[in-house]
């Protein structure tokens, strides 16, 4: 146990081989390197502050404090600050939700290519929004939210039920294949409608680009319970993810109720990803890549990956959103796009340099 601990203190480039041996030791209470936690939290604070302060109109920190403490009743910037606070809250929720869901999904399916939408959640939400637009004429964001949530939920249940129909029950490979098949099917139905209805596509193409702007705090409050439930479920199931990562047989022999554990994680992922997609539209890159980055930095233990994702997800999304507002003034490049633009070069360098932390 002492060898991995010293390795770990050397920082981000710690050996994954050493980690594997130590991290999976049963019952070993391991301390986190405090430096990493402080660094990540500091970055998140910076991201939050810049997200509120910067944009097409920069607001001095003094004015910002005044408005936030309730002093600035008469100030002209008040409306801007309120809109940006709402936007930042959305960014924190969605960033955390997607990154945590992604980590859980990759652990659940034991597949590095799995993104949180793999349970059919994104495609289900998309099809529901398409139906809402084209059949029921829904046109407002708050209308989309409920449709998207319902579509996401139905798709996730469908995937899980189908994967469970086969003899032997839900297994990672089956879940993966069933999820990919349902996703592709639902997405095709969506494009079938969109190809033949230009009007629906004109509304849908703006929803389809994930963005965190333009959502009021009231909308956030309606979706908040879902984020809370999803986060709690996944955080409670984190230890089980480590057992599941060893394979079903070994997990079972460690006393894990594999079926229950898997169902719990899947439920958490579906709720988190569904709520995120409903609130911000589909944002693909975040849930896929942040868990990989976390794995590079802290090794394969989900008890450490998930907290890192919880902090790093919002940081990346907020930073991307802020940059997106700054580069295209007075308009903006949506956060869903900027996350990928900022994240990919960083990710490529990481893959090229770092050691592979396999699942």
């Amino acid at each position: 146990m002492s060898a991995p601990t010293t390795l770990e203190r050397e920082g981000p480039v710690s050996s994954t081989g050493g980690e594997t041996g130590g991290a999976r030791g049963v019952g070993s209470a391991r301390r986190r390197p405090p430096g990493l936690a402080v660094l990540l939290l500091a970055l998140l604070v910076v991201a939050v502050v810049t997200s509120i302060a910067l944009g097409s109109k920069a607001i001095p920190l003094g004015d910002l404090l005044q408005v936030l403490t309730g002093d600035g009743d008469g100030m002209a910037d008040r409306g801007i600050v309120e809109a940006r606070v709402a936007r930042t809250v959305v960014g924190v929720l969605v960033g955390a939700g997607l990154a945590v869901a992604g980590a859980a999904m990759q652990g659940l399916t034991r597949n590095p290519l799995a993104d949180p939408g793999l349970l059919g959640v994104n495609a289900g939400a998309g099809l529901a929004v398409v139906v809402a637009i084209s059949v029921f004429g829904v046109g407002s964001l708050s209308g989309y939210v409920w449709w998207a949530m319902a579509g996401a939920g139905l798709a996730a249940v469908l995937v899980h039920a189908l994967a469970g129909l086969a003899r032997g029950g839900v297994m990672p490979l089956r879940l993966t294949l069933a999820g990919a098949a349902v996703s592709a099917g639902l997405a095709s139905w969506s494009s079938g409608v969109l190809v033949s209805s230009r009007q629906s596509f004109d509304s849908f193409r703006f929803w389809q680009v994930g963005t965190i702007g333009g959502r009021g705090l009231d909308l956030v409050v309606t979706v908040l319970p879902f984020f809370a439930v999803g986060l709690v479920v996944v955080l409670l199931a984190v230890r089980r993810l480590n057992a599941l990562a060893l394979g079903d047989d070994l997990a079972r022999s460690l006393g894990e109720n594999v079926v229950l554990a898997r169902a719990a994680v899947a439920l958490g992922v579906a709720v988190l990803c569904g709520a995120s997609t409903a609130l911000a539209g589909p944002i693909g890159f975040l849930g896929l890549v942040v868990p990989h980055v976390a794995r590079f930095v802290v090794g394969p233990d989900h008890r450490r990956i998930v907290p890192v994702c919880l902090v790093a997800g919002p940081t990346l999304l907020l930073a991307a959103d802020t940059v997106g507002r700054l580069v295209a003034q007075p308009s903006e490049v949506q956060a869903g796009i900027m996350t990928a633009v900022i994240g990919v070069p960083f990710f490529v360098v990481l893959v090229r340099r770092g050691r592979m932390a396999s699942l």
Partner: protein
Amino acid sequence: MNADVLTPSGAVADPRAVAAEESDDLARVVRARRRPARRVHLVIAALAVAALAAVLVRVLLGDYVVALTDLLLILRGETPPDAPGASFIVMEAKLPRALLGLLAGLAFGAAGAMFQTTLRNPLASPDIIGISLGASAAAVIALTLLDAQGLWLPAAALLGAVAVSLLMYAVGRGTTLAGQRMVLVGIGVAALLSSVIQFVMTRTSIQDAQAALVWLTGSLARATWPVIGLLSAAVLVLAPLLAVCARWMRLAELGDELSTTLGAPAGRARLGLVVAVALAAVATSATGPIAFVAFLAGPIARRLCGGRPSLWAAALVGAVVVVLSDFAGDYLIPAVNLPVGVVTGALGAPLMLAVVVTADRAGKA
């Protein structure tokens, strides 16, 4: 049986009897080993017939029915006396679509199966690891911003696919984990490119955006003879290479170390990947990424073959699915022409789910 001729007589008590007994055992073993292989051959033959039948259905049936005898006349360059307009419709509309569908289906099916087997990941189809998205992003930009026409569109798409492949290759180069790294970079780049596509779609006119959407879904509507010529040339060059790689597929499935130990030439699996990338790239540039075909052909073929991966079967499954889906997309709903990609996804998904649900063992889905 030459062995007992060469054996000096008298060295063994009764060489003929021993040899007969041995050959009996041998024959039994050979028979037992050949049975699954024979099933694969039967499946491939049946699929080839099915693909041919699908092409004939696509060409002969539909809104405008063409008689088989007329088709033969048209193919010989003559004009059928009783249907003077048939020649134009067959040669300019029906036959190009059927052939393009056949070629693209073969390429997608084979490429997908090669990825899934070599990278040992059922999700590793060209759709997910970035190659189709490289082509898509380039095509969408060419279509909306540069107003590309004719052969320029597939050329741009091919360029995009090649650029992504080169990036993946550069990142994976020189490590034993090349496959893993390539896949990781591929999914990252795929996410970036799909963002770029969505950005372009929101900034362009709705007409252009919808044309791009049709391309992104995968469509055979742009079938022209030059495109078919180029695609078939590419398939003819790549197919023999793939045949070489297919022989090592079952070993590649065991992983790099084990397959080398068992005598598979090092790098053969890598060559397979390169061929698969090339196939996926040319097919995507000709038709757009036809949803789901590369992903579903492999598992379905494997199921048909009783659990053995077969590249040829996967290719033929892809061809059958694409040609029939295109037919269904044109005529299933009256007055609505759906791009082929909508049908492959919408109808292919239940097919795939049936395969998953009825899979009898874990890992043999």
